[in-house]
């Protein structure tokens, strides 16, 4: 196991290095400069280039970037003067992480519940209804959902706060819901099919024969065995959450890294775009690694290659 983890971590680091290199050189060919003032003269631009180290050869800049990265330094933002990208991302990451985690937990819990209800009532009306709802859930992009939730519960009914973060829990409800629907729908569909397989299996038939009723059966036996594969879903779900959260954070004015990423695109703040990309990639890879390891630990049937 230790060897497997070590190998995976090494691969992860190499992958990350490739991601860093690829994004770095991509940034070099993207059009744009860090300055937004039309009054700047050529000499002032040359001066600014020197300040940001942009006058050095690209390879030197690249190695500087790598060395700084090893020290946890992602450079200085063009847009936010003097502000280090590591600080910008570091302070925003917990916000995004909380939002993402809340959405993931709510989504998975709802998915488990709906999935089980669906499976228990296979091919009945409830099942069909939940089936359509969950398919709808994966076909509605979370930002459209966020807009609708904001409109209905924030603007029209006025039940929940419409923007902000950090003052009260109620501020987190709408964005969490908007993001949770995707994971909930995916989990529902997955749990349903897993549980139907399990319910048809021999040992459940045996339990049934022994007189266990529906609810007990599902809680005691079916859940446990259909839970494990859900772990494998977390990786892709995290990836989708990252995509969704960028726009949802923007809609609700939440100071997370998604919002930062979106706002750094029109301002061509390349150090921030790059830093965010690297952090996103690292987060996603770590999530996938953790779920793989967890799967290996909980499921004795899965053998490590």
């Amino acid at each position, binding site marked *: 196991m230790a060897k497997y983890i070590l190998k995976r971590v090494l691969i992860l680091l190499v992958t990350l290095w490739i991601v860093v290199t690829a*994004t770095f050189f991509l940034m070099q060919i993207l059009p744009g400069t860090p300055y937004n003032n039309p009054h700047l003269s050529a000499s002032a631009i040359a001066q600014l280039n020197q300040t940001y180290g942009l006058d050095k050869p690209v390879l030197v800049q690249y190695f500087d970037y790598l060395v700084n990265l090893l020290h946890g330094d992602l450079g200085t933002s063009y847009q936010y003067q003097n502000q280090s990208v590591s600080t910008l991302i570091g302070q925003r990451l917990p916000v995004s992480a909380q939002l993402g985690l809340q959405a993931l937990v709510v989504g998975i819990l709802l998915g488990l519940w709906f999935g089980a209800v669906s499976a228990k009532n296979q091919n009945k009306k409830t099942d069909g209804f939940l089936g359509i709802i969950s398919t709808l859930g994966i076909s509605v*992009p979370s930002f*459209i959902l966020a807009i609708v939730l904001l409109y209905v519960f924030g*603007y029209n009914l006025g039940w929940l706060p419409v923007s902000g973060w950090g003052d009260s829990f109620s501020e987190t409800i709408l964005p969490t819901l908007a993001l949770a629907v995707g994971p909930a729908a995916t989990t529902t569909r997955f749990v349903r099919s897993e549980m139907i397989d399990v319910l048809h299996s021999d040992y459940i038939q045996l339990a049934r024969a022994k007189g266990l009723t529906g609810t007990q059966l599902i809680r005691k036996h079916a859940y446990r065995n259909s839970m494990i594969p859900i772990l494998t879903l977390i990786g892709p779900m995290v990836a989708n959450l990252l*995509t969704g959260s960028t726009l949802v954070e923007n809609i609700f004015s939440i100071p997370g890294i998604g919002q930062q990423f979106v706002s750094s695109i029109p301002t061509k703040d390349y150090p921030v775009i790059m830093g965010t990309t690297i952090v996103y990639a690292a987060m996603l890879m770590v999530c*996938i690694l953790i779920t793989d390891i967890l799967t290996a630990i909980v499921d004795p*049937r899965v053998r490590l290659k």
Partner: protein
Amino acid sequence: MEEVQNEFSLVGIEDKSASENIVKPALSTWQSVWHRLRKNKLAVVSLVFLVLVMLYALISIPLVSQNSANQFDTGTAKYKNLPPKSGLPIPGWDGNMTTPGATESVDVYAKNDVDQNFILGTDNLGRSVAKRVTVGLRISLFIAIVATAIDLLIGVGYGLISGWLGGWVDTVLQRVIEVISAIPNLVVVTLLAMLFGSSMWSIILAIALTSWTGMARQVRNLTLTYKERDFVLAAKTLGESGPKIALKHLVPNMSGTIIVQIMMTIPSAIMFEAVLSAINLGVKAPTASLGTLITDGQNMLQYYPYQILIPSVVLVLVSLAFILLGDGLRDAFDPKMADE
């Protein structure tokens, strides 16, 4: 999920039905797929819906040109923000609405002295929403389908090469996929869209270049499995070349998986187009896509909600239909379902 399938293999018996006898008359693969798909009402409805949508999109090309959807009268404001009017006394679809700032619902058409009926209303410049949604649907579908087609070429080719050649080639190609999937798609699509600038083709390319990995993985895994099967060995013995075997024998056998994968890629491409529009990297104005219509409609949500609801509903319905059809096809292609 695919990630994990690469790393782990299940031990034990997987295929229960293998031991059962087949007693039904032999049907060709496609016949039996259709036979099974027909039983899934939702999938059939989706299929019919999608066929109609595609036909509509095609037929509309000569009828509603891109140019006509961008036209409006610069000389008057009376056509601006007209609510949907069907011409029938259907509440909510009769041209009546409470305009922003007003307190009572009035027939806006009568108030503005407009004789024409706009069945889905007009936008903030006075352009017909029906025309814009038609063009938007066409463009979004075009982007999604072309991106998926490119996806298909890259994904299947890549998967076949990786699986067929195996060895170090396979290892390298799989690592490349891992790197690409390590960066969230949105980020890659955004970076590529920034690189290529905002035109329809750059969006297509940006989407295509990120979404082929799923297809490549599935095809590779199937190639690895089929490589050892008798029919491939037989073809090899008869001296057929690698590429020929791949095209003549492997691809037809994978068609089910590939088709299901396509059904899943199209809606996600539609969604990515919308996301790109939301961060101002969408198609060039005044060309409409579903994404740009939704983004522009966002400012209207409070005042003229139909302007965002209509394109959103179209987007969701089309995605929904693709996903439901994909589900149906997956079940239909699944041999386990054969006896049900």
